[in-house]
């Protein structure tokens, strides 16, 4: 089974240590080992929700809020630019979801 890593007790996301498809993965780290069933592909270094997050709810990693859910997020769902935005950097929600490239820069 593939592996993910939960850093802090209060985190509601874990980080994938290897690329995974929609499949059960191990959750290592801060708490006793558990398993989360991914409902979609989540690549290495990306995050999976470990529990339901309400729209406007905080995404917690390292025990601190790293952003706000822009819509409801299910357990096992990929958490990234499409459903989470920064509370500081207003540009973050405009970035391309796959590449992270800026979409607000004019080239002409």
């Amino acid at each position, binding site marked *: 089974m593939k*592996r993910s890593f939960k850093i802090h007790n209060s985190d509601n996301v874990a980080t994938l240590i290897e690329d995974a498809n929609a499949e059960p993965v191990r959750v290592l780290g801060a708490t006793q080992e558990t398993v989360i069933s991914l409902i979609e592909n989540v690549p290495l270094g990306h995050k999976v929700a470990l529990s339901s997050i309400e729209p406007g709810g905080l995404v917690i990693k390292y025990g601190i809020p790293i952003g706000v859910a822009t819509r409801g997020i299910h357990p096992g769902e990929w958490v990234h630019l499409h459903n989470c935005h*920064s509370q500081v950097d207003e540009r973050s929600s405009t*970035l391309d979801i796959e590449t*992270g490239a800026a979409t607000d820069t004019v080239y002409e």
Partner: protein
Amino acid sequence: MNEITWQGYLREDGRKGVRNYVLVIYTVECASHVAHEIARGEEDVHVLGFPGCYDNAYAIRLMLALARHPNVGAVLAVGLGCEYTQPARIAEIVRQSGRHAEWFYIQESGGTRSSIEKGKAQVRQLRTETRTQTPRVPMTLKDLTVGAECGGSDGTSGLAGNPVVGAFFNLLVDHGGRAIFEEIVEMIGLRDVLRQRAATPAAERDLLVAYDKTVRHCQSVRQYSVSPGNFAGGLTTIEEKSMGAFVKGGQRPIQGVIRVAQQPPGPGLWLLDSVPDNHFMQFGYTNPNDTEGIMDLISAGSQIVLFITGRGSVIGSPIAPLIKVTGNAATFERMKDDMDFNAGRILTGELSIEKAGLELRDLVVSIAAGAPSRPEALGHREYFIMYKHQDTPSLQEGCRA
């Protein structure tokens, strides 16, 4: 348990070094070739310098802090002869610190060949003096100041590399040592976290002042320290990247903020502010490259610097040994000659963060005792000193606070 001790070098100001180097400092780019040729092939002789012809208060403070670093036993300052920065003044201040120092101008010494010959004779003499005259004394962790910097980060840095350095910082602080971390640009979004970690109301005020200055800086350049590659690698927000960088500071209270060339006034964990202060020329840039941050950490008296790199960097540093920590086991294997510590083992469950922190402490101690770090063994001594403006620390700050 008995306290861990090793032999260091005692300086007149009471600080102790883990190396005993002769430093060649050039005062303008025009003198850099001669300076490097003087040091070439000479054991324990390192080089750094400032490229500008017009002098800069920040750069002079930085060079004087490095010239009087506990790992430096003696200094040779070399100038061309027409620049603003004065090698004679550098040598004079170094002598006042109890170290031997020499200086000369290339224009007064007959040009390249004879200047190299003269400089080589001088560094050999200085090396003999500092080797024979510097008292050896026992050192413990409480005599150590260690800096931490990350660069070439990847998804493992926040998960493994930085937390292991944080675990070591906890141990160092608990033993009465000094730990310094920087990169405030990568603390955006952590205002409340910084506030909670402040050791005193004064520290809280200083942390928030430094934080707010950094936010203004990022807003004015319209860029936070996060890139498309970071997002593609799985980082969603600057807050997430910030926290991944911040964990290298460990979990102990932050005693306050120091600026470049300023020593921590007491033991514990300190934050180094390398962001430029306001100046009519809008001088300088924050963290232009990893080497600049490492120089800043050394200028604050770090005898050793830990460098966390997930993707794999190959830099080193003069004066203070650089120790490479990677959280990426594949990088460790691929770049074995360059990497000192494999923190990737905590991701496979092979090692706990606490055990890895203890292992890293043992490595730091062995390198402090004289074993070469990987970058040292490979001869890496990159340095970078730039024009910048920072306000001189006021008398109310630092050790008088």
